[in-house]
């Protein structure tokens, strides 16, 4: 498995989190699990890389953490995508799309899709 550089991971993390939360609200551990699953283990966020990212996004008003009771009865802090966060999603997608197209033109990096 290829380890992704921390800076790339951080940059892409915002998009990954926003895209996941666009589908449904999730708590931190579930976010890290989904990112690892969907990316086939290429992107992995642990305690130290995920929460500063979430807190920063929350400060910017892109996501909102709410303590909610899970089906198990346990209270979890679920992150919800805010209207402001939703607005960020399209430009971020476009920005990363352009980035990969540029890399493809320069270095022949093609996406797997």
């Amino acid at each position: 498995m290829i380890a992704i550089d921390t800076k790339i991971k951080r940059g892409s993390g915002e998009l990954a989190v926003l895209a996941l939360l666009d589908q449904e609200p999730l708590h931190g551990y579930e976010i890290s699990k989904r990112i690892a699953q969907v990316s086939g283990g290429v992107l992995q966020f642990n305690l130290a890389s995920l929460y500063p990212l979430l807190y920063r996004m929350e400060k910017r008003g892109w996501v909102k953490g709410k303590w909610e009771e899970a089906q198990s009865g346990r209270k979890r802090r679920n992150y919800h995508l805010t209207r402001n966060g939703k607005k960020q999603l399209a430009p971020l997608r476009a920005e990363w799309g352009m980035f990969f197209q540029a890399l493809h033109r320069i270095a022949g990096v093609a996406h797997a899709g």
Partner: protein
Amino acid sequence: MPDNQELIRERLGNLGLGTCREEEIFRELSDHVADHAAALEARGVPRDAAVRAALDSVFNWPEFREEILSAETEEAIMNYRTKVLWLPALCALTLSNVMLALIQVFGPPPHFYWFYTGKSMQPMIAFFVPWLISQPVVGAVAAYWSRRAGGALRHQLLAALAPVIALLGLFVLILPFSMVLDKHVAHNIRLTAFLVLTVVWVLLPSVPLLIGAAPFLRKPRPQSS
């Protein structure tokens, strides 16, 4: 065994964010550790080992703490590397050079070692012994500062050795320029001078710098409140 929240609090210390927000952060992180540990337990890892492994997924707790604080204030007042490396290194560099300047002005003259160059005896090496004696203090200050700021062992070492690393960088930069620009001195003499300067101003002062730093070199401890 203490609960996860307590273990995280021990490692992160007081965040200074207000009781309510801190409690919320510790609780949330503790939930994450519990989930991670439960996933490991499900794969057959014993409970204690699973919790330890979940906590060990954070390689550097002081850095994690800084990241949380930076995210919470949404401004990197001073980034982690500046605090643990650049500032102590700059302090060591300044202190070392100030000491050298003072010793050159007020101290005893340097010890010259003479070499026979084929035609005559030439002064090749100048030792400022009082300056060398003063270097453990510089190493100690830099290593202590870096450690207090939460620097890893490598940051403490690099900060303590900053004065000699800077000189080595300077010599390495000057050598090719002098070879191109100054055509009056033969290349072999310049290379010899480079080696002699490296030994006298880099390798030799490294020893007292490291001696001074040694008592303070330690792996960073989790900060407590």
